[in-house]
Protein backbone atom coordinates (compact mmCIF):
# COMPACT_ATOMS: atom_id res chain seq x y z
CA UNK A 1 0.00 0.00 0.00
CA UNK A 2 1.48 3.34 -1.00
CA UNK A 3 1.50 6.44 1.18
CA UNK A 4 -1.52 7.98 -0.54
CA UNK A 5 -3.54 4.78 -0.54
CA UNK A 6 -3.11 4.52 3.22
CA UNK A 7 -5.24 7.61 3.70
CA UNK A 8 -7.73 6.85 0.97
CA UNK A 9 -9.51 3.78 2.28
CA UNK A 10 -11.35 1.71 -0.26
CA UNK A 11 -14.79 0.41 0.65
CA UNK A 12 -14.69 -3.17 1.83
CA UNK A 13 -16.85 -4.81 -0.81
CA UNK A 14 -15.96 -8.42 0.01
CA UNK A 15 -18.75 -8.55 2.59
CA UNK A 16 -21.27 -7.31 0.04
CA UNK A 17 -20.16 -10.05 -2.35
CA UNK A 18 -20.45 -12.67 0.34
CA UNK A 19 -23.93 -11.56 1.37
CA UNK A 20 -25.22 -11.43 -2.22
CA UNK A 21 -23.80 -14.87 -2.95
CA UNK A 22 -25.22 -16.36 0.21
CA UNK A 23 -28.71 -15.29 -0.86
CA UNK A 24 -28.51 -16.24 -4.53
CA UNK A 25 -26.83 -19.60 -3.88
CA UNK A 26 -29.47 -20.53 -1.28
CA UNK A 27 -32.20 -19.51 -3.69
CA UNK A 28 -30.72 -21.45 -6.61
CA UNK A 29 -30.09 -24.53 -4.50
CA UNK A 30 -33.69 -24.40 -3.34
CA UNK A 31 -35.07 -24.58 -6.85
CA UNK A 32 -32.47 -27.08 -8.07
CA UNK A 33 -33.93 -30.39 -9.16
CA UNK A 34 -37.38 -28.85 -9.09
CA UNK A 35 -39.68 -28.83 -12.08
CA UNK A 36 -38.43 -26.87 -15.11
CA UNK A 37 -41.57 -24.74 -15.23
CA UNK A 38 -40.81 -22.99 -11.93
CA UNK A 39 -39.06 -19.90 -13.37
CA UNK A 40 -41.83 -19.41 -15.94
CA UNK A 41 -44.50 -19.95 -13.30
CA UNK A 42 -42.81 -17.36 -11.14
CA UNK A 43 -42.71 -14.85 -14.00
CA UNK A 44 -46.34 -15.36 -14.99
CA UNK A 45 -47.46 -15.19 -11.40
CA UNK A 46 -45.64 -11.92 -11.04
CA UNK A 47 -47.41 -10.55 -14.14
CA UNK A 48 -50.82 -11.44 -12.74
CA UNK A 49 -50.05 -9.91 -9.37
CA UNK A 50 -48.77 -6.81 -11.12
CA UNK A 51 -52.24 -6.19 -12.54
CA UNK A 52 -53.49 -5.55 -9.04
CA UNK A 53 -50.55 -4.64 -6.85
CA UNK A 54 -47.22 -3.17 -7.74
CA UNK A 55 -44.92 -5.67 -6.08
CA UNK A 56 -41.19 -5.87 -6.32
CA UNK A 57 -39.95 -8.84 -8.45
CA UNK A 58 -37.84 -9.90 -5.50
CA UNK A 59 -40.91 -10.03 -3.26
CA UNK A 60 -42.05 -13.30 -4.83
CA UNK A 61 -40.39 -16.28 -3.25
CA UNK A 62 -40.90 -19.84 -4.38
CA UNK A 63 -39.92 -22.67 -2.13
CA UNK A 64 -39.99 -26.32 -3.03
CA UNK A 65 -39.97 -28.57 -0.01
CA UNK A 66 -39.53 -32.29 -0.34
CA UNK A 67 -40.87 -34.50 2.37
CA UNK A 68 -41.29 -38.24 2.44
CA UNK A 69 -43.58 -39.13 -0.40
CA UNK A 70 -44.73 -35.64 -1.36
CA UNK A 71 -43.55 -32.20 -2.39
CA UNK A 72 -44.86 -28.87 -1.21
CA UNK A 73 -44.65 -25.84 -3.44
CA UNK A 74 -44.76 -22.74 -1.30
CA UNK A 75 -45.26 -19.20 -2.60
CA UNK A 76 -44.69 -16.18 -0.49
CA UNK A 77 -45.45 -12.72 -1.80
CA UNK A 78 -44.55 -9.70 0.27
CA UNK A 79 -47.04 -6.92 -0.49
CA UNK A 80 -45.89 -3.31 -0.36
CA UNK A 81 -46.87 -1.29 2.70
CA UNK A 82 -49.46 0.76 0.80
CA UNK A 83 -51.27 -1.08 -1.98
CA UNK A 84 -50.31 0.30 -5.37
CA UNK A 85 -47.49 2.36 -3.92
Amino acid at each position, binding site marked *: *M*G*LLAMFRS*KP*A*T*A*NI*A*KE*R*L*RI*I*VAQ*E*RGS*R*GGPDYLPLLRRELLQVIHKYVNVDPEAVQINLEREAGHEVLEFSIALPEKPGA
Partner: protein
Amino acid sequence: MTEIIVVTSGKGGVGKTTTSASMACGLARRGKRVAVIDFDIGLRNLDLIMGCERRVVYDFVNVINGDCTLKQALIKDKRIETLYVLAASQTRDKDALTEEGVRKVLDELIADGFDYILCDSPAGIEKGAHLAMYFADRAVVVVNPEVSSVRDSDRILGLLSSKTHRSANGNGGVKEHLLLTRYNPRRVANGEMMSVGDIKEILGLDVIGVVPESPDVLAASNAGVPVILNDDSTAAEAYSDAVARLLGEELPLRFLEEPKRGFFARMFGG
Protein backbone atom coordinates in the same frame (compact mmCIF):
# COMPACT_ATOMS: atom_id res chain seq x y z
CA MET B 1 -7.19 -48.75 -9.42
CA THR B 2 -7.60 -45.81 -11.75
CA GLU B 3 -9.10 -42.61 -10.46
CA ILE B 4 -10.83 -40.26 -12.87
CA ILE B 5 -10.66 -36.61 -11.84
CA VAL B 6 -12.49 -33.80 -13.61
CA VAL B 7 -11.12 -30.26 -13.40
CA THR B 8 -14.09 -28.00 -13.93
CA SER B 9 -15.51 -24.57 -13.03
CA GLY B 10 -18.47 -23.43 -15.10
CA LYS B 11 -16.97 -20.01 -15.72
CA GLY B 12 -14.19 -19.60 -18.26
CA GLY B 13 -10.77 -18.15 -17.62
CA VAL B 14 -10.50 -19.13 -13.97
CA GLY B 15 -7.56 -21.50 -14.43
CA LYS B 16 -8.92 -24.94 -15.31
CA THR B 17 -6.25 -25.77 -17.87
CA THR B 18 -3.46 -24.29 -15.73
CA THR B 19 -4.72 -26.44 -12.87
CA SER B 20 -5.10 -29.59 -14.98
CA ALA B 21 -1.58 -29.24 -16.35
CA SER B 22 0.00 -28.55 -12.98
CA MET B 23 -1.88 -31.25 -11.10
CA ALA B 24 -1.12 -33.80 -13.82
CA CYS B 25 2.59 -32.92 -13.59
CA GLY B 26 2.46 -33.01 -9.79
CA LEU B 27 0.89 -36.46 -9.69
CA ALA B 28 3.25 -37.82 -12.32
CA ARG B 29 6.24 -36.35 -10.50
CA ARG B 30 5.24 -38.49 -7.56
CA GLY B 31 5.54 -41.57 -9.71
CA LYS B 32 1.89 -41.97 -10.69
CA ARG B 33 0.99 -42.86 -14.26
CA VAL B 34 -1.14 -39.97 -15.43
CA ALA B 35 -3.12 -39.18 -18.57
CA VAL B 36 -4.50 -35.68 -18.94
CA ILE B 37 -7.26 -35.19 -21.51
CA ASP B 38 -8.43 -31.93 -23.10
CA PHE B 39 -12.24 -32.03 -23.41
CA ASP B 40 -12.49 -28.58 -24.98
CA ILE B 41 -13.33 -29.82 -28.46
CA GLY B 42 -12.87 -27.08 -31.03
CA LEU B 43 -10.71 -24.94 -28.75
CA ARG B 44 -7.62 -27.01 -28.07
CA ASN B 45 -5.44 -25.42 -25.37
CA LEU B 46 -4.00 -27.94 -22.97
CA ASP B 47 -1.28 -28.86 -25.48
CA LEU B 48 -0.02 -25.26 -25.42
CA ILE B 49 0.04 -25.07 -21.64
CA MET B 50 1.84 -28.44 -21.52
CA GLY B 51 4.24 -27.27 -24.24
CA CYS B 52 3.59 -30.16 -26.62
CA GLU B 53 1.53 -28.36 -29.29
CA ARG B 54 3.93 -29.24 -32.08
CA ARG B 55 3.78 -32.91 -31.30
CA VAL B 56 0.01 -33.31 -31.73
CA VAL B 57 -0.61 -35.73 -34.59
CA TYR B 58 -3.81 -37.43 -33.54
CA ASP B 59 -6.40 -36.22 -31.05
CA PHE B 60 -9.22 -37.38 -28.78
CA VAL B 61 -11.84 -37.45 -31.55
CA ASN B 62 -9.49 -39.39 -33.87
CA VAL B 63 -9.29 -42.10 -31.20
CA ILE B 64 -13.07 -42.15 -30.75
CA ASN B 65 -13.61 -42.41 -34.50
CA GLY B 66 -11.04 -45.17 -34.83
CA ASP B 67 -8.73 -43.11 -37.11
CA CYS B 68 -5.81 -44.17 -34.92
CA THR B 69 -5.07 -46.16 -31.80
CA LEU B 70 -5.05 -44.60 -28.35
CA LYS B 71 -1.31 -45.28 -28.13
CA GLN B 72 -0.70 -43.25 -31.29
CA ALA B 73 -2.65 -40.29 -29.93
CA LEU B 74 -1.15 -40.17 -26.44
CA ILE B 75 1.70 -37.66 -26.31
CA LYS B 76 4.40 -38.68 -23.89
CA ASP B 77 5.70 -35.78 -21.83
CA LYS B 78 9.39 -35.01 -22.35
CA ARG B 79 9.99 -33.94 -18.76
CA ILE B 80 8.16 -36.54 -16.71
CA GLU B 81 8.37 -40.20 -17.65
CA THR B 82 4.88 -41.26 -16.54
CA LEU B 83 2.85 -38.37 -17.97
CA TYR B 84 0.75 -38.46 -21.14
CA VAL B 85 -1.40 -35.84 -22.88
CA LEU B 86 -4.42 -36.45 -25.09
CA ALA B 87 -5.15 -33.32 -27.13
CA ALA B 88 -8.60 -32.01 -28.01
CA SER B 89 -9.77 -32.10 -31.56
CA GLN B 90 -10.16 -28.84 -33.45
CA THR B 91 -13.25 -30.00 -35.28
CA ARG B 92 -16.29 -27.73 -35.23
CA ASP B 93 -18.59 -30.73 -35.09
CA LYS B 94 -20.40 -30.43 -31.77
CA ASP B 95 -21.37 -34.08 -31.78
CA ALA B 96 -17.82 -35.37 -32.18
CA LEU B 97 -17.76 -36.38 -28.52
CA THR B 98 -20.20 -39.08 -27.50
CA GLU B 99 -20.78 -40.76 -24.18
CA GLU B 100 -19.91 -44.12 -25.74
CA GLY B 101 -16.76 -42.76 -27.33
CA VAL B 102 -15.54 -41.17 -24.11
CA ARG B 103 -16.31 -44.33 -22.17
CA LYS B 104 -14.32 -46.39 -24.68
CA VAL B 105 -11.22 -44.19 -24.36
CA LEU B 106 -11.42 -44.08 -20.56
CA ASP B 107 -11.87 -47.86 -20.37
CA GLU B 108 -8.79 -48.35 -22.51
CA LEU B 109 -6.73 -46.05 -20.28
CA ILE B 110 -7.98 -47.94 -17.21
CA ALA B 111 -7.09 -51.28 -18.82
CA ASP B 112 -3.65 -49.86 -19.60
CA GLY B 113 -3.08 -49.34 -15.87
CA PHE B 114 -3.07 -45.55 -15.54
CA ASP B 115 -3.33 -44.40 -11.92
CA TYR B 116 -4.99 -41.09 -12.70
CA ILE B 117 -6.99 -39.71 -15.60
CA LEU B 118 -7.45 -35.94 -15.46
CA CYS B 119 -10.27 -34.51 -17.54
CA ASP B 120 -9.76 -30.84 -18.36
CA SER B 121 -13.31 -29.56 -18.82
CA PRO B 122 -14.31 -26.75 -21.17
CA ALA B 123 -16.14 -23.75 -19.67
CA GLY B 124 -19.92 -23.73 -19.68
CA ILE B 125 -22.40 -26.50 -19.06
CA GLU B 126 -22.72 -27.84 -22.60
CA LYS B 127 -21.87 -31.28 -23.91
CA GLY B 128 -18.08 -31.12 -23.52
CA ALA B 129 -18.38 -30.05 -19.89
CA HIS B 130 -21.03 -32.68 -19.27
CA LEU B 131 -18.93 -35.50 -20.73
CA ALA B 132 -15.78 -34.32 -18.93
CA MET B 133 -17.54 -34.77 -15.59
CA TYR B 134 -19.79 -37.70 -16.45
CA PHE B 135 -17.42 -40.56 -15.58
CA ALA B 136 -15.50 -38.76 -12.82
CA ASP B 137 -14.80 -40.22 -9.39
CA ARG B 138 -13.62 -36.87 -8.09
CA ALA B 139 -13.99 -33.26 -9.09
CA VAL B 140 -11.67 -30.33 -8.58
CA VAL B 141 -13.84 -27.23 -8.93
CA VAL B 142 -11.63 -24.26 -9.77
CA VAL B 143 -12.98 -20.99 -8.42
CA ASN B 144 -11.79 -17.37 -8.30
CA PRO B 145 -12.73 -15.24 -5.29
CA GLU B 146 -15.22 -13.31 -7.39
CA VAL B 147 -19.05 -13.40 -7.50
CA SER B 148 -19.71 -14.85 -10.95
CA SER B 149 -17.11 -17.58 -10.55
CA VAL B 150 -18.52 -18.64 -7.17
CA ARG B 151 -22.07 -18.72 -8.46
CA ASP B 152 -21.08 -20.73 -11.55
CA SER B 153 -19.19 -23.25 -9.46
CA ASP B 154 -22.28 -23.78 -7.37
CA ARG B 155 -24.15 -24.55 -10.56
CA ILE B 156 -21.45 -27.06 -11.49
CA LEU B 157 -21.70 -28.64 -8.04
CA GLY B 158 -25.41 -29.14 -8.70
CA LEU B 159 -24.63 -30.91 -11.98
CA LEU B 160 -21.95 -33.05 -10.34
CA SER B 161 -24.49 -34.30 -7.85
CA SER B 162 -27.20 -35.04 -10.40
CA LYS B 163 -25.80 -35.52 -13.92
CA THR B 164 -22.91 -37.93 -13.50
CA HIS B 165 -22.47 -41.68 -13.79
CA ARG B 166 -21.80 -41.96 -10.08
CA SER B 167 -24.84 -39.95 -9.06
CA ALA B 168 -27.08 -41.85 -11.48
CA ASN B 169 -25.91 -45.24 -10.25
CA GLY B 170 -25.82 -44.46 -6.56
CA ASN B 171 -22.09 -45.11 -6.23
CA GLY B 172 -21.76 -42.57 -3.46
CA GLY B 173 -21.55 -39.61 -5.82
CA VAL B 174 -18.56 -37.67 -7.06
CA LYS B 175 -16.11 -36.50 -4.39
CA GLU B 176 -15.88 -32.72 -4.70
CA HIS B 177 -13.07 -30.33 -3.81
CA LEU B 178 -12.62 -26.59 -4.23
CA LEU B 179 -9.43 -25.09 -5.56
CA LEU B 180 -9.10 -21.33 -5.30
CA THR B 181 -6.94 -19.54 -7.83
CA ARG B 182 -5.94 -15.88 -8.30
CA TYR B 183 -6.04 -15.44 -4.53
CA ASN B 184 -4.71 -12.09 -3.42
CA PRO B 185 -4.01 -12.07 0.34
CA ARG B 186 -3.43 -8.32 0.43
CA ARG B 187 -6.82 -7.57 -1.09
CA VAL B 188 -8.45 -10.10 1.23
CA ALA B 189 -6.84 -8.34 4.21
CA ASN B 190 -8.18 -5.01 2.93
CA GLY B 191 -11.69 -6.40 2.65
CA GLU B 192 -11.69 -6.03 -1.13
CA MET B 193 -11.75 -9.74 -1.89
CA MET B 194 -13.65 -12.67 -0.41
CA SER B 195 -11.53 -14.93 1.77
CA VAL B 196 -11.08 -18.72 1.61
CA GLY B 197 -13.34 -18.92 4.65
CA ASP B 198 -16.08 -16.90 2.94
CA ILE B 199 -16.08 -19.12 -0.14
CA LYS B 200 -15.92 -22.30 1.89
CA GLU B 201 -18.89 -21.10 3.86
CA ILE B 202 -20.96 -20.11 0.80
CA LEU B 203 -20.31 -23.34 -1.11
CA GLY B 204 -20.00 -25.67 1.87
CA LEU B 205 -17.07 -27.63 0.46
CA ASP B 206 -13.58 -28.53 1.55
CA VAL B 207 -10.70 -26.60 -0.02
CA ILE B 208 -7.94 -28.67 -1.58
CA GLY B 209 -5.74 -25.74 -2.47
CA VAL B 210 -5.37 -21.98 -2.62
CA VAL B 211 -3.15 -20.70 -5.40
CA PRO B 212 -2.01 -17.12 -4.91
CA GLU B 213 -2.24 -14.68 -7.80
CA SER B 214 1.18 -14.77 -9.40
CA PRO B 215 2.95 -13.45 -12.47
CA ASP B 216 4.57 -16.90 -12.72
CA VAL B 217 1.31 -18.35 -14.08
CA LEU B 218 1.42 -16.23 -17.24
CA ALA B 219 5.15 -16.82 -17.58
CA ALA B 220 4.51 -20.56 -17.37
CA SER B 221 1.89 -20.51 -20.09
CA ASN B 222 4.11 -18.32 -22.26
CA ALA B 223 6.86 -20.90 -21.99
CA GLY B 224 4.69 -24.03 -22.17
CA VAL B 225 6.04 -25.28 -18.87
CA PRO B 226 3.31 -25.95 -16.27
CA VAL B 227 3.75 -23.54 -13.36
CA ILE B 228 4.17 -26.36 -10.82
CA LEU B 229 7.57 -27.08 -12.41
CA ASN B 230 8.84 -23.60 -11.53
CA ASP B 231 10.87 -24.29 -8.41
CA ASP B 232 10.80 -20.82 -6.94
CA SER B 233 7.18 -19.90 -7.34
CA THR B 234 4.57 -19.74 -4.60
CA ALA B 235 1.96 -20.84 -7.16
CA ALA B 236 4.04 -23.98 -7.77
CA GLU B 237 4.26 -24.70 -4.05
CA ALA B 238 0.52 -24.19 -3.68
CA TYR B 239 -0.16 -26.65 -6.51
CA SER B 240 2.28 -29.18 -5.02
CA ASP B 241 0.39 -28.93 -1.73
CA ALA B 242 -2.92 -29.46 -3.53
CA VAL B 243 -1.52 -32.59 -5.19
CA ALA B 244 -0.37 -33.89 -1.81
CA ARG B 245 -3.85 -33.30 -0.37
CA LEU B 246 -5.37 -35.10 -3.33
CA LEU B 247 -3.18 -38.06 -2.38
CA GLY B 248 -4.54 -37.93 1.15
CA GLU B 249 -1.85 -35.96 2.96
CA GLU B 250 -3.00 -33.40 5.49
CA LEU B 251 -1.27 -30.08 5.06
CA PRO B 252 -2.23 -26.64 6.33
CA LEU B 253 -3.11 -24.06 3.66
CA ARG B 254 -0.24 -21.72 2.85
CA PHE B 255 0.11 -18.28 1.24
CA LEU B 256 -3.10 -16.98 2.83
CA GLU B 257 -1.28 -13.97 4.16
CA GLU B 258 0.66 -11.27 2.44
CA PRO B 259 4.40 -11.81 2.63
CA LYS B 260 6.08 -9.38 5.02
CA ARG B 261 7.58 -6.40 3.22
CA GLY B 262 10.10 -3.87 4.30
CA PHE B 263 9.29 -0.35 5.47
CA PHE B 264 10.15 1.32 2.15
CA ALA B 265 8.20 -1.21 0.12
CA ARG B 266 5.15 -0.56 2.29
CA MET B 267 5.47 3.21 2.09
CA PHE B 268 6.22 3.57 -1.57
CA GLY B 269 5.55 0.21 -3.17
CA GLY B 270 2.43 -0.51 -5.24
